[in-house]
């Protein structure tokens, strides 16, 4: 199989690394070679966070640079746009419909762009905007946003749905299994 490249991005503290971990474990279970890059240290203190996952028969570069990504899974709208040039023509964006204002905006130096969606759409790529918070609340716990988003990606990839659910539940507290299962269904059946 040709290598599939996924950029997972968001803001420090949103759970980007856990999400990309789950994807990489599923790909390994699916019998593929996998590579996954992540960022630690200075870059995590509320800054932009990117993690790249690639899987296929044989994967070389762990990094996904301009025009290499098949998918962008973003936990925040501005970060989806920031990383958009990594997407190849014909790729797809799945983004949380959620804004976190960076310090540069809070301090009034920049405006949070109002045309993010238009800009993404203008490139002709497929965009799935997910009301992560709304669906997570519907599932019964705001902290299941990441599960909703992962599920929205899962339905585009070829792995078994049950494998996704199992791998996701392994990473969350036992008593939240029921709500996470529900959250997964909501994201999967968008």
């Amino acid at each position, binding site marked *: 199989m040709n290598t599939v490249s996924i950029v997972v991005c968001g803001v420090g503290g949103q759970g980007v690394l856990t999400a990309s971990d789950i994807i990489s474990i599923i790909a390994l279970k699916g019998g593929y070679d996998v590579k996954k890059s992540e960022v630690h240290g200075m870059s995590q203190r509320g800054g932009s966070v990117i993690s790249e996952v690639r899987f296929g028969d044989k994967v070389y570069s762990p*990094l996904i*640079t301009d025009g*290499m990504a098949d998918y962008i899974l973003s936990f925040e709208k501005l970060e989806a746009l920031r990383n958009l040039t990594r997407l190849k023509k014909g790729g797809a964006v799945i983004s949380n419909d959620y804004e976190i204002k*960076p310090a540069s905006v*809070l301090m009034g130096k920049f405006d949070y762009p109002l045309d993010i969606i238009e800009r993404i759409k203008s490139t002709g790529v497929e965009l799935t905007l997910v009301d992560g918070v709304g669906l997570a609340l519907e599932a019964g716990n705001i902290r299941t946003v990441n599960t909703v988003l992962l599920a929205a990606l899962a339905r585009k990839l070829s792995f078994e749905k049950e494998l996704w659910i199992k791998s996701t539940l392994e990473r969350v507290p036992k008593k939240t299994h029921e709500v996470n299962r529900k959250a997964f269904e909501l994201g999967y059946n968008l």
Partner: protein
Amino acid sequence: MKKVMMGNEAVARGAWEAGLHVATAYPGTPSSEILESISKYPEIYSEWCTNEKVALEVATGASFAGARALVAMKHVGLNVAADPLFSLSYIGATGGIVIVTADDPSMHSSQNEQDNRHYARAAKIPVLEPSDSEEARRFMKIALQMSEEFDTPVLLRLTTRISHTRTVVNTEERKEIPIKKYEKDFKKRVILPMNARTLHYKVEERTKKLREFANNFKENKIEMKSKDIGIITDSISYQYVKEVFPLASVLKIAMPWPFPYKLAREFASSVSRLLCIEENDPFIEGYIRQLGIEVEGKDKVPMVLELNPDRVARSFGVDYGDPVEVKVDDLPPRPPSLCPGCPHTGFFYIANKLKLIVTGDIGCYTLGALPPLNAIDTCVEMGASITNAHGIQLALRAEGNEDIKKVVGVIGDSTFFHSGITGLINTYYNGGIGTVVILDNRTTAMTGHQGHPGIGRTLMGTPGRKIDIPKFIKGIGIEHVYTVEPYDIERIEEVLKREIARDDISVVIVKGPCVLISEFERKAYFYVDEDKCNGCKLCLGVGCPAISMEGDYSRIDKYLCTGCSLCARVCPFDAIVQKEDK
């Protein structure tokens, strides 16, 4: 068994499989997870040391006594440990000893992008460079083996993309290696000049043997494909080369020093066009040129910042990737910042207000240099705050300048133990009058909350002895030592004004836990009473990520707010109030 492992975890795994006995380190991104992973293997004794020099010396002692030892650090840590490194090269290994250096091309979390392959050449010790986690595991084992076989410390060089990339690893079981019996060896381990002279001859002999070994080392690999183009590469660059040039022949260098001249010559003569693709310095390229061979390298490949498929492709005009076209260069940046409720913020707010000359140091608190706090004038390397402050005061003293009373050195608790203490003693001894501020957040926050001597918890989870910082400083003989609460900015201002005016050295400790550790207690959140807020934006001056302007008023994100009260304390209109119940 197949697992997905981070490079750092794989190094730990390899060390465990190879029967490692002792592991030491001082944390530093991107190396920190090596010791954290090792600490989970009960067969290995592991400890956080106060700094890298100490860590290497402890590991050296273990090797003297016949144990297999590993020491891990980030690239700049090796500068701190360079003194024992160069001696150890002469002394060699009894139990195998491997120094793991994690370099940081692109400076994701570092002050420079030094290329530690140079240390191998300078100290005359072999260096191995894995290109993924599986190799990190295997090379760790090879390194321990080589160390004992060639009687030399071995450098294992990772980079951020090796350390922090997860790739598939085939794990094996541990093989127990007995600790050799301790034997005194004056000629080997006491490097008096008379012994060192003999030892240096031995080092040169060793290098000859290692050079032969390099030419036949099976991890230095030729992958022959098209004869039109041949690429010599190493480390993570190998992966980008395979990605961008799938048809090229490749010489993958796993051990760049001693350089496998013979192998390189053989490879170069079998291809019509030769490229050398490596990150940062032209280390391998230099050796190819020494052979008088034409090569395309750093004339095209960037020297600054890490490589990636895009940069490798563009260096040689190759089309790679088919990106969508969209404008993104006008987006608001999202740099890291101090967390809401960070105990470092209050001091910086006051330092900025008093227009102090602040020499900084390395840690989360370096972020106090950024707007809106703008409170740090210098940052050089770990420990430099106290010593730089002393030097600035010496210069200002000569000028008879009033500014001499505005100089403050600021340092974190972990950094103080790492390399602040010697500087403080120096200032005291030489009659310096500076004020030193220690930001004691009860952890090594920047690198992921490791323990240190002020905390009293060891890496292996046993209770350790705890050093009381004020008591320690008073023990030196410094009289003026004061501890203040991190959010009580009125008191911080009062104490600082008093201490900088003093004609004597003093130390102010700002003590309160990092918001990301369990000791921190979140309090009820604050909100803005719009009837009182006049939109003056003074509260934005603390630089809290929870505060923003919403129209004419400021607004506090109640989910981000930790209830620290700093913003309420700076508001002149009492417009920021705490929610009653939690």
